[in-house]
């Protein structure tokens, strides 16, 4: 759609690289050692977004429910992989349980938003379903990663306390209640904070995009409100589900804590 929008040509894109060069220069000057990461990051940004542009163009043109669902699943698989890589603790493997629970909950929220609230017809209309699902997955992925990292870190750090409660007859839920609560709070806080700051401290990306594309700001804000509410809801659901599932995986069949200290420093 080029209506009301100034097109960015290849030379303008290259011109924007001046900012990356400035960042690289600063890194060199201060000896930060980030030049390689900056270069890789810039190349990946260009490559991934160009690829995405062509894929979206293809998907929109084909207008097939299966293709939309395949893209949706692909995004979730990558989100779980990113979550896995961001969590320092590697003793608990949660890829499959998280993939299943994330797929079910994202599908539910995305369907509710596009099919029921927006009323897109059909509910999987790619122009609505894919960008909204992408935002949903991208944002709650961060929340889930924060929550899980916090949960695993606390369970390991407070192992003595957890085991003390288990020894006194607590089940695994009671023994890990405090850690679960802290993990969920940690995951929820960023999206609540952004609800507080939206429109005052920053203008969100989606709304900016719509306005740049020529949409009426009053329509753009409605979409943005919808997105913010959807994000808080899905973040809460996903943090809750993820933390519960992973917490169970941290305990064995006898509800014994499986997470070990880093080194075998424990008494035997």
């Amino acid at each position, binding site marked *: 759609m080029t209506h009301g929008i100034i097109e960015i040509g290849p030379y303008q894109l290259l011109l924007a690289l001046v900012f990356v060069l400035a960042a690289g220069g600063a890194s060199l000057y201060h000896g930060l050692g980030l030049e390689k990461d900056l270069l890789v990051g810039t190349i990946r940004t260009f490559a991934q977004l160009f690829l995405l542009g062509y894929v979206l163009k293809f998907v929109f043109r084909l207008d097939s429910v299966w293709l939309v669902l395949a893209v949706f699943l692909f995004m979730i698989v990558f989100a779980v992989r990113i979550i896995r890589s961001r969590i320092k603790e590697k003793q608990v493997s949660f890829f499959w349980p998280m993939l299943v629970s994330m797929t079910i909950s994202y599908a539910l929220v995305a369907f509710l938003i596009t099919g029921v609230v927006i009323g897109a017809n059909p509910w999987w209309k790619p122009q609505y379903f894919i960008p909204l699902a992408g935002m949903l997955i991208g944002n709650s992925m961060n929340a889930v990663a924060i929550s899980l990292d916090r949960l695993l870190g606390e369970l390991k750090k407070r192992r003595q306390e957890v085991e003390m*409660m288990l020894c006194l007859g607590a089940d695994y839920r009671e023994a890990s209640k405090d850690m679960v609560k802290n993990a969920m709070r940690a995951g929820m806080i960023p999206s609540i904070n952004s609800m507080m700051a939206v429109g005052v401290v920053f203008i969100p990306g989606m709304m900016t995009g719509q306005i740049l594309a020529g949409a009426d700001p009053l329509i753009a804000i409605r979409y943005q409100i919808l997105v913010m509410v959807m994000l808080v809801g899905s973040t809460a659901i996903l943090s809750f589900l993820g933390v519960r599932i992973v917490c169970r995986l941290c305990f064995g069949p006898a509800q014994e804590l499986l997470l070990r200290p880093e080194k075998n420093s424990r008494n035997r």
Partner: protein
Amino acid sequence: MDNNNILDFKDVTFAFEGKTPLFKGLSLSILKGAFYLVQGPSGAGKTTFLRLINRLEEPISGEIRFRDKPFESYSPPILRRSLLYIQQTPTMVDGSVEENLLLPFSFKKNLHLARPHREKLNNLLRDVFLHDVEMNDHAMNLSVGQIQRLCLIRGLLLSPEILLLDEPTSALDRKSAQAVMTLIERLNLESGLTILVVTHKTYGQGRVKPRYLRVGEGRIEESS
């Protein structure tokens, strides 16, 4: 099995992930009402032995039976409450002494148990020379030695069938350590409580004739 046995290990093998087995084909019985001292060099597996009894660790093969029934036939929280393990590092939650002592009674599986009165709690505190500790004191402000004794009392309030103590006097001065050992002996003699104590200390002239479990080289052997 012998009716006097409260616990039976049958061909139990245990290993930490990726390590050589700490115990291999372990078979032994614990007599009901007996008083055991578990001894052996550091790293031999004394703590792990107690943790296996409490199901904080799971064997890779073999079977452990409690009252002639496999461990798996008990709900883990109830089993742990009956085979009570008190950790070497005494641990309290952020709260008062009373809140800490009554903590186990807030757990679902313990809700039906009678909560002890203050008087009983105060008597127990006196038994282990904690005269200067008040119920409203903040548990985190107490010394390690005081917390160690509070942990013992907290465990006893659950009326376990076996008491598993991991170095229960390690942070105590001689007088307090003696008070704790006297209490443990009394529980064994008067209430018939089965007790296993991991300790490096030599057992002096106690009222109980202990049995010894020597842990080392992947085995546990009983000796007198």
